[in-house]
């Protein structure tokens, strides 16, 4: 089963982009979520928010077009779309914590069946970890989508009953988009909504650490 084709990181980003409503204000986190801006469906306008004080980020800057006073949360030079605005970091996080953003798309190490999120530190790794804006964004945004690979490199489930990695936020994740499936976190547990081409619900369940309703 492990030889079966999974979605690439770009394809996960593309699938997650289809979850974004037209006109939404959206924050993108580190990792796969950062690829979403380049994979928006045609005809959809989304106002991307960056924690360093930008609303209305466009695509990444092309070579020669970079301005290093205009970078996203990953330090990548970006562009603006018409209607963009700047503000300071406190107002940027007032938008995240205060529930002003419609959607945040974040990376994750683990998500629990209740939607607990762990995405800032790997246990046993060197160093102190790096929280950045993730706790503010996860705690306050109306809808949190996680984009990640379904399992770790050595095949461990990343969707689990209880997170064992240091927590970012309790019960904040609404939807999980992986290289195998789209799963909603509901009051009644995890609900499998979509499958990657060629995968069955049973196969995805075997690679998931918590029960999935179909």
């Amino acid at each position, binding site marked *: 089963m492990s030889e079966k084709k999974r979605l690439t990181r770009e394809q996960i980003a593309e699938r997650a982009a289809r979850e974004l409503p037209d006109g939404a204000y959206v924050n993108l986190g580190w990792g796969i979520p950062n690829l979403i801006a380049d994979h928006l469906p045609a005809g959809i306008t989304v106002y991307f928010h960056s924690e*360093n004080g930008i609303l209305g980020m466009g695509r990444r800057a092309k070579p020669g077009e970079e301005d290093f*006073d205009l*970078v996203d949360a990953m330090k990548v030079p970006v562009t603006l779309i018409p209607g963009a605005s700047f503000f*300071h970091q406190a107002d940027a*996080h007032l938008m995240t*914590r205060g529930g002003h953003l419609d959607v945040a798309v974040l990376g994750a190490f683990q998500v629990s069946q209740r939607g607990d999120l762990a995405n800032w530190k790997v246990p046993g790794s060197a160093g102190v970890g*790096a929280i950045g804006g993730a*706790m503010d964004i996860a*705690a306050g945004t109306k809808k949190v989508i996680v984009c990640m690979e379904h399992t770790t490199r050595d095949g461990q489930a990343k969707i689990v009953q209880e997170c064992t990695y240091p927590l970012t936020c309790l019960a904040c994740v609404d939807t999980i988009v992986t290289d195998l499936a789209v799963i909603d976190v509901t009051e009644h547990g995890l609900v499998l909504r979509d499958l990657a081409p060629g995968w069955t619900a049973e196969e995805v369940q075997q690679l998931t650490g918590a029960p999935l309703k179909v």
Partner: protein
Amino acid sequence: MCATLDAAVDAIPDGARIMFGGFGSSGFPNNLIQALVRRGTKNITAISNNCGTRDGELSPLFKSGQIRHVIAAFPGPHSFAFQERHAAGEVTIELVPQGILCERMRAAAAGLLGFYTTVGVATEVAAGKEERIINGQRCILEMPIGADYAFIKADKSDGLGNLTYRLAARNFNPIMAMAAATTIAEVEEVVPVGAIDPEMVVTPAIFVHRVVVAKGIRYV
């Protein structure tokens, strides 16, 4: 107005608490940081989003051993000088969620004595903090963060210290300017009083105490 960078950081004593603006590749007071390395102030508590990137931003102050304690949100993967000092037990760190770092500074600036937030509940960040329930939600008490000095980077200043910023380079700078007892700004250009449209002023001069012109050093 200070004639030189060294004059701008003059008289900063050992043990000072200093805020440093900047995020990503933009808005770091890199010239002031280098002046502080030359001055040699020791036992600094640094408050900043990150902990240096490769050779830039706060890294020279970690390399020189001038920072003892840091309050930060994102000690990034390339904060090598910090990582080395931290592993050796020479630097301690308090990790703070980024928006809470902003808000704790803003509380200090606004004369508020703390606030409750849901951010960080049930995480390592909540350790040792008072927890209570407000409107049915678990939340923790966060205390203000003030400082003796803020080192900030702006684009233009007028002769009074009214500041404007360029693009996303404002990031933490306006908040730190408000939260510190003494704010020192390095700017690209000083213009006459009255030359900045009052509607365009981002940081009013009341928050700015020293200004020095220095062309940006940037680490990308």
